């Protein structure tokens, strides 16, 4: 009875805290500008099934894809056992799902095998991170102390959770063996481990409880660690993929306010619709492009909370490969750090301030120039490689273009040669300084050549 009350208290606390964190993050994301979505629901659901559930884009790289798949499937299946743990915790039952008979056998066996595979995969992932030092996981200014520690913490927690599970099962199994009764379920791994456990009934009872509590406490703690971590992607990947832009990647967004302005210039009778107004009915001064994180759209901010910091984007970025400052992953991580710097950080840990590292501190407290330098932004070739590479369909390019718009339209701060290009287009209708009257010269040469 006391255990049941304790369990309910802990679970309510853990889940409540998690909900509180998620609500704060939701509020942060909604600080972004509105965005018209378009696209059909069925198309979106398809994408989500394929990319988020189906891990489609992970399989561009086979080794990490398989390792990740094991952990991912393990996570999904072991959740069934977690449900049982919850039921047992609330009602004080023991192995509440065992009424399912043979199905339960299969379930427990699958769980155990996946659990063992998860441990193997996690060790391999740890190896890639810390011994092999895979370039994209360790290199880059954005991979400061916290992101690197975070990557490892997740792996350690997985090990602890799996160990707790096996401790619980093995102790339980041995208890039943000593008492000469059958434990429902089938435990291929734990039955190998029983030999390692003591013959003492009290100790086994204690071990079983320790395993049980460690597992459930671990899960609740981990749940509350998620929002501070790149591991938050296990939740965010789904809405993020669902809201993917469904237009061709080459199609950039339009700025509607500019469309109205241009139309009015070309046709004086054009009626410009009234712009947005604030609570007092005064027109809101709109900013072109994005200077700060909340000038971006909510989709860009959702992106920022979905990033797994895997660096696949950066590792295919032509600018980054050739040694330029630009790293699309940094753009995404900076956005997340900035929105939490500007609004209250909803997180228990403050990743962006860990170890005294606060990223680039904003001189004028904004995203552009504060964290992201114009040099990074101007290095982008808009090639879409980062967009293509991201396993959770994040679009760093979209944010980059918004920030360029700010630099050009609000600050007129484009590099000189681009300003020259702009004025060529304005005056000559071509980005080069050629006269429009020479536009047809190629045809004369054709004619000459044919003679």
């Amino acid at each position, binding site marked *: 009875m006391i255990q049941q009350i304790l369990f309910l208290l802990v679970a309510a606390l853990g889940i409540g805290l998690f909900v509180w964190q998620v609500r704060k993050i939701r509020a942060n994301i909604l600080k972004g500008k509105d965005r018209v979505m378009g696209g059909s629901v069925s198309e979106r659901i398809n994408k989500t099934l394929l990319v988020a559930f189906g891990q489609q884009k992970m399989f561009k790289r086979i080794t990490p894809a398989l390792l990740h798949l094991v952990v991912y499937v393990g996570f999904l299946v072991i959740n069934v056992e977690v449900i049982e743990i919850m039921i047992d915790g609330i009602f004080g039952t023991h192995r509440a799902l065992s009424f399912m008979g043979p199905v339960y056998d299969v379930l427990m066996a699958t769980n155990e095998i996946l659990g063992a595979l998860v441990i193997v995969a996690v060790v391999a992932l740890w190896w890639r991170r810390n011994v092999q030092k895979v370039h994209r996981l360790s290199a880059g200014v954005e991979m400061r102390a916290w992101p690197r520690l975070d990557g490892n913490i997740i792996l350690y927690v997985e090990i602890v959770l799996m160990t707790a599970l096996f401790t619980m099962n093995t102790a339980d199994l041995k208890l039943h063996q000593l008492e000469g009764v059958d434990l429902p379920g089938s435990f291929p791994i734990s039955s190998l481990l029983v030999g390692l456990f003591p013959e003492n009934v009290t100790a086994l009872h204690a071990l079983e409880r320790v395993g049980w509590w460690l597992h459930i406490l671990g899960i609740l703690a981990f749940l509350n660690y998620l929002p501070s971590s790149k591991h938050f992607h296990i939740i965010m990947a789904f809405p993020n993929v669902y809201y993917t832009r469904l237009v061709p990647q080459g199609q950039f967004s339009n700025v509607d306010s500019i469309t109205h302005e241009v139309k009015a210039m070309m046709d004086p009778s054009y009626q410009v619709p009234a712009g947005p107004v604030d609570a007092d009915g005064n027109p809101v001064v709109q900013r072109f492009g994005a200077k700060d994180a909340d000038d971006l759209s909510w989709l860009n901010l959702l992106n920022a909370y979905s990033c797994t910091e895997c660096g696949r984007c950066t590792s295919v970025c032509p600018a980054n490969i050739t040694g*330029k400052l630009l790293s699309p992953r940094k753009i995404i991580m900076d956005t997340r750090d900035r929105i939490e710097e500007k609004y209250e950080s909803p997180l228990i840990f403050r990743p962006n301030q860990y170890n005294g590292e606060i990223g680039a501190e904003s001189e004028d407290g904004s995203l552009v120039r504060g964290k992201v330098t114009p040099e990074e932004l101007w290095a982008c070739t808009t090639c879409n490689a980062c967009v293509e590479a991201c396993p959770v369909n994040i679009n760093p390019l979209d944010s980059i273009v918004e920030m360029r718009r700010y630099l050009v339209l609000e600050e007129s701060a484009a590099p000189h040669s681009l300003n020259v290009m*702009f004025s060529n287009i304005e005056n000559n209708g071509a980005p080069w300084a*050629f006269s429009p009257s020479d536009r047809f010269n190629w045809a004369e040469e054709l004619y000459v050549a044919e003679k």
Partner: protein
Amino acid sequence: MADLAARGEQPEVLFWVGCAGAFDDRYKRVTRAFVRILEHVGVKYAVLGMEESCTGDPAKRAGNEFLFQMQAMQNITTLDGYAIKTIVTACPHCFNTIKNEYPALGGNYEVIHHSTFLQQLINEGRVKVQGGESYKGRRITFHDSCYLGRANDIYEAPRDVLAALDADLVEMKRSKANGLCCGAGGAQMWKEPEPGKKDINIERTEEALATLDGNAAALENLYGVESGNAGATPAKGNGNGIIAVSCPFCMTMMSDGVKNKERESSVQVFDLAELVASAEGLNA
């Protein structure tokens, strides 16, 4: 186009030449090659000539949305004035902009990139790709333009065109959706690259050259290619070959790269239209 309109005629397609196609000396040769193909197969086409203006692509990618929309609206007015329905262009940037970004501003056309157009001509048998220069046994590698490939999912059309040439097609390790940019997109064409270890076009040219040379060792450890998606290791080549492109900016970038590597004598950069034209005996 104005002449045609004056005669009350309507072309089958409007050939959108693009600024590079009209002004860049190297790409003017591509424009002419494409026009020769059009005339050869008897497609009724027209060009806007002096009435054409920049699509606004470089302005938009550089963040100058205002200038972009001015250009776009102007061009839409011109195109609509002639009641244009179908546009073909050799520039993936013009293609992408007119196809994807003009509709929101009121410009709706069927837009075809010349690689797709050439593929159709070949499929229909209107272009035979024989009778002129033979590419049998020559090594060709195709460099995907970002604005054709990733931006618009066109990967097969240019490859089909090259396959029709009967050449020895070799794929770079980073190709199709994993292709590496030539370094010119997003208005980079008009500015110096930011400081770094090397320029993007050099990195890409090195990869193309190594592929043509069949030098697989040089292709190991490319960033961004971890495993799984690598093409078959190409057999040793003789150091000669062709880098095929389908974009004026890729053309400039790859040509500069080949020059930088001092390989102009053995490796040439050609646009699809030029390859088809010369295979057809329509030499410029």
